[in-house]
């Protein structure tokens, strides 16, 4: 979070916001786009590790629900990698169980951190059961960036929604605005916290910790600007869905085999 270039990026983003009434009116309707675009002219490349150029990438995430076994490895990996405080989750796994004569049962004990115990209601009459891993969707049109009082959370050029922990005052407005409940207020830093797709890893060419830890290949991470990336191929060719599409937040997390109960 302390990269100089990111701070300068932020400064640029804020500069744009103050530029004038015109830009603010436009940004009312397309906040992320405007800031990312204008930041592009001011960014100083080279501040990232190994000359990482954020403009050369656009990251996306694909989750294949047919493969998830609910082992919770991703949740544990995330907790370890990012030092996520207890009772809060940057990523978590939900279990859905449904049948013709019983209501949908959803649970996520400790966010799936220790896997899933046998269902309390039993499996009698269950005709369909599946796991759904969740995290920040890194939306392109995200309410959290829209509502942040002074752009402490922002959309980066490579498609991520990030929080500048040194600017955030901890009002929690973004936490309320996120329809996916993927944000929380970190009790230690007293600032907004969320999944960053392990930005410190991906900007060094590594995969996010959860992707690396997943034993079944449920979680896939890729760059849609790379024509040979398998994730780009999946997005282009498979039938995919996003969470709460009616919110029009344009998530960059895509699900294969998403069911209608999942919000």
């Amino acid at each position, binding site marked *: 979070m302390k990269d100089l270039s990111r701070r300068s990026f932020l400064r640029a983003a804020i500069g744009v916001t*103050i530029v004038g009434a015109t830009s603010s009116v436009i940004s009312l309707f397309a906040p992320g786009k405007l800031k990312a675009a204008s930041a592009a002219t001011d960014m100083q490349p080279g501040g990232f590790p190994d000359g990482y150029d954020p403009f050369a990438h656009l990251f996306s995430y694909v989750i294949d629900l047919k493969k998830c076994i609910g082992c919770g490895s991703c949740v544990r990996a995330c907790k370890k990698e990012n030092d996520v405080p207890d009772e809060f989750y940057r990523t978590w796994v939900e279990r859905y169980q449904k049948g013709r004569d019983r209501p949908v049962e*959803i649970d996520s004990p400790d966010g799936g951190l220790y896997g899933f115990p046998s269902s309390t209601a039993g499996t009698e009459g269950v005709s369909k059961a599946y796991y759904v891993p969740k995290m920040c969707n890194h939306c392109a049109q995200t309410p959290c960036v829209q509502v942040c009082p002074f752009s402490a959370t922002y959309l980066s050029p490579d498609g991520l929604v990030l929080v500048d922990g040194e600017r955030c005052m901890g009002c929690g407005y973004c936490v*309320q*605005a996120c329809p996916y409940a993927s944000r929380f207020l970190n009790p230690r830093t007293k600032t907004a916290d969320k999944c960053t797709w392990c930005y410190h890893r991906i900007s060094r060419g590594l995969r996010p910790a959860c992707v690396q830890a997943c034993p079944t290949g449920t979680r896939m991470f890729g760059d849609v600007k790379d024509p040979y990336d398998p994730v780009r191929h999946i997005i282009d060719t498979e039938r995919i869905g996003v969470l709460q599409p009616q919110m029009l937040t344009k998530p960059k997390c895509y699900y294969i085999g998403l069911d209608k109960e999942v*919000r």
Partner: protein
Amino acid sequence: MHEVLGYVFPNDLHILWSLMIVLYPYVTGLVAGAFIVSSLYHVFEFESLKPIARFALIASLAFLLVATWPLLLHLGHPLRGINVMITPNFTSAMAGFGYFYGGYMIILLFEVWLVYRKDIVTYARRSRGLKQWIYKLLALGVYDISEEAQQIDRRAVKFLAAIGIPAAFLLHGYVGFLFGALKSNPWWSTPLMPIIFIFSAVVSGIAALIVMYQVAMKLKGLVIDRACIGTMVRWLWLFLIITASLEMLEIITLAYEKAEEWEIIRQLLTGPLALSYIGIQMIMGVLIPFILLMIIVLLDRNMGDKVANTLSFTAASLLLIQVFAMRWNVVIGGQMISKSLAGMRQAYRPELFGRESITTAIFIMIVPIVFIFVAEWLLPMFKFSEEQTRKLKETADYSKGYTE
């Protein structure tokens, strides 16, 4: 630790916005409401409100002074809050607050100064010692209280009060917009939210003035102006009808549409929020005061002063609770619903001591009262009521609508 009904997202287990965020729209509402009453006199020339017009302005300023305190107490990094003013993000509903608040503060300070200017100058000439210095400071070097100067003052007050009305509505409508504009929360996300906030603000402001005015008159041993109370009761009744209708319209629309969100809101209102929504907000807070106010308005002539004052005091006190309950049900209730729409948290109880506790809330509510006492010591607000009382005592005629 967290009582949960149904399925709640793991990060939704925590009530993030606490009692302080309930208090913040409540105090802001009192500011706006009290200001509207003073404007009814200054702009719309309701002469019967004269006994309370000066007091209403000071009360409004007193609450405005503490309006930001609950917010600052809630922030994880309150010192960074100033960034809202320096580098605002204009797409954020929250970023505007500093400007609305600051602009409104300027209008109110100017108006208070102009209304009290004649007194300030008089006292600055009359008093000695520390008090004289305070008055000299308050006079800002302007000592002209000729009839022409006062004429200009009055016109300026009228103008400020006039632009103050939209400012007050903006300030509070904006607070409602903070919640109403979040599509993530079905209990908040309605265009009615800012409107309900505005009207309930006026209700709470008038109710607070009825209560405080009667208490002040008792403390000072002055007569309570029946006509003044009567006018406020009529306005209060009108605004209560509008507020209650809007609040019910919101629920009825949700219930009638039977959209996805109704499933969980229905459970919330009849479950964990049953007492504070149905019991306190709707029955104790709307139905009972509505009946009381109706009795006062309809049976005005057949009612003794004591009865009318007691009834209006009771109704106003209940309405103060009603508006607080409404803020509570919006802010806390909204957070009890999980964004999964499949479950909710069952209860939230604020702490007794600490930064965002009940004690802090009580302290914040006491500060404006202290401020009013200090203001009364410096600039007597009830000169008109004192005159009325004196005249009554001289003629010993207590039967013409005044009582002690």
